[in-house]
């Protein structure tokens, strides 16, 4: 593993980095950043600063000349062990937006495309103190009456039913290296969003014995970046029959239209014809031909979008203990360098995977922090 060049962990403006034993930060295309770190507290920091507050936590590190700086909020303490020399405990933290999503209640009306509604909800939730980057424009639009619910729930409703012009579902997520802002991106655009290496080629996660010294395997530090000894295809269409039955590859959709007191049958445009009867949100909920944002929620295209979300996890590959790649984040697409092995891909014609999540791990070793990444990869 390669080591961090610096680490600052400020809790209530007190630098705890000297007390940190290990730290993980998890990012995923399914949500916001969160993490935890374990400290050896022999200065009674907990009683002084933490136990009654939700303190801001700044985590800043430098790795291979890349500076990463994020601010989180404490979200509780667990696993406290009180020992003679002090306390050992784990401080959990979440992002600012995740906290606001839970604490902000929204009771308002929004209209427009799904991405713009998400933007307004996000602004309402974070009072303009956080930024949203819209990478993909939504094709879904309409009115959304937010019925006095948590901002997070409202945003989830919109995002879960939204898709872009490519009939690809949207994801709202945060990256560690985005340093504070949030992204709205479709799976389609993620698959086109390649992470490039220094050679301007698509970056490959490489299967090698990593973590050894340059002297032992001849690899320089830069050569080691993005290598891992462990590629694990943890799931390849597991429970395929059940997923077929559940309609992950298409349903024969019968839709009840209360507006017309009729049942509309749609042709199956995917693989299976397992029937499902759904109810359609009225097209006439509002005057002036304004439709609900969720009127399209049960159209076959919407089902296809949701199916794609599920199917993309049908091939789920874990690449563990990767020598950390600076800037590598969820939502990028990377290649796999199989090397002499053939285990890294089951599709020889397509070695590219979307990074679904990364668990950034920082482990204290001889007074410095090793930085490793556990990466989850998906694709259709």
């Amino acid at each position, binding site marked *: 593993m390669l080591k961090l060049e610096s680490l600052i962990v400020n809790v209530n403006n007190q630098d705890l980095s000297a007390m940190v034993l290990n730290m993980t930060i998890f990012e995923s295309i399914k949500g916001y950043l969160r993490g935890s770190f374990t400290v050896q507290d022999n200065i009674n920091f907990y009683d002084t600063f933490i136990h009654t507050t939700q303190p801001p936590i700044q985590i800043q590190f430098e790795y291979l000349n890349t500076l990463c700086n994020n601010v989180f909020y404490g979200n509780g303490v667990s696993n406290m062990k009180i020992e003679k020399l002090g306390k050992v405990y784990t401080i959990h933290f979440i992002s600012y937006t995740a906290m606001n999503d839970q604490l902000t209640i929204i*009771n308002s009306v929004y209209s427009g495309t799904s991405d713009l509604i998400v933007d307004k909800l996000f602004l309402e939730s974070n009072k303009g103190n956080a930024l949203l980057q819209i990478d993909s424009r939504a094709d879904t639009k309409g009115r959304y*009456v937010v019925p006095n619910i948590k901002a997070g729930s409202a945003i989830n409703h919109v995002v879960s039913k939204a898709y872009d012009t490519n009939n690809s579902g949207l994801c709202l997520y945060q990256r560690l290296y985005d340093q504070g802002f949030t992204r709205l991106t479709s799976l389609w655009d993620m698959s086109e969003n390649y992470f490039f290496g220094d050679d301007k080629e698509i970056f490959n996660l490489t299967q090698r014995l990593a973590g050894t010294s340059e002297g032992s395997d001849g690899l320089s530090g830069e050569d080691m970046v993005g290598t891992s000894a462990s590629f694990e295809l943890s799931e390849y269409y597991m429970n395929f029959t059940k997923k077929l039955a559940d309609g992950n590859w298409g349903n024969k959709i019968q839709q009840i239209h209360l507006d017309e007191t009729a049942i509309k049958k749609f042709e199956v445009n995917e693989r299976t014809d397992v029937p499902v009867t759904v109810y359609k949100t009225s097209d006439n909920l509002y*005057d002036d031909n304004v439709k609900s944002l969720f009127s399209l929620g049960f159209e076959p295209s919407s089902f296809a979008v949701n199916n794609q979300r599920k199917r993309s996890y049908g091939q789920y590959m874990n690449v563990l203990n990767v020598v950390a790649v600076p800037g590598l984040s969820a939502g990028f697409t990377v290649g796999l360098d199989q090397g002499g092995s053939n285990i890294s891909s089951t599709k020889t014609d397509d070695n590219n995977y979307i990074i679904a999540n990364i668990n950034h791990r920082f482990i204290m070793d001889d007074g410095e922090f090793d930085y490793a990444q556990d990466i989850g990869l998906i694709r259709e």
Partner: protein
Amino acid sequence: MIFFGKVVDINDTKKLGRAKVKVYDLHDNIETKDLSWSMALMPANTPAQFGHGQSVNLQIGTLVVGIFLDSAQQEFLIQGSLPTKTDGVEDNNVRVRGEADPNAGEPAGGYQPVSGYQPVYPYNNVMETESGHVKEYDDTPSHERIMERHMSGTQYEIIANGSKNETIVRDNYRLVVGHDTLEVYGDVRIIVSGHADIAVGGNLTTSVTGNIAADAFGDITLKTNDTTKRVVLDANVLVKGNLTVNETTTTSAQSSSRTPVLLDGHDHDETHSPITQTGIPN
């Protein structure tokens, strides 16, 4: 999960019987214009198609209960209304509650029977509309009634013994395109404060077992407008007052009582031939 709310708009632009409901807590900050239209669940005894069955009858302010049809809570379905106390005012009709007849003080006819209104809660089933039209089906023991009333006061009431009492506060008109029959076992009394007209296209036949009396303070005129037709008195005629003939008098009687008849101021007793009298009586 069941939600409660208040009806805030009933002017459904599509006239589907929908209403806008401001669901408590969920729509507190939502303006009425932004709310969605909610369908109302109707009872299974109304077909709810082709214009058949009952129409939705909600008012602005009605407390309703319902559910959301979708997980995003956008489409509300009204399952029913709740009669309680709206802003402290009893929602149940005074007639349901068995209180005093709200129309008791209205003017009645001189011969009009009194109302059989004596409802006891909870036997009286009442439907009253916003303007004040009322239908009552009162099952109160010994005081079973049916009453239907227009907001103006025109109404009919059928009381426990089957008698019907009808009040029309303005004009009455009835068109019968076919035939009409009124059969009365008892007496009929018609009281007309103004004039009465009977216009008959065909014959007017009155068949009376007893007597016929026509009593007037003015003239009584029997007239046929066709000069070839006559007024026929097909029985003995008793004239208790004076008899005045303005035109020719023709007698075709086959016999005479020989009782002198005063004509033109002097007696005649001719029995053998018709008598023709001309000239002005003296």
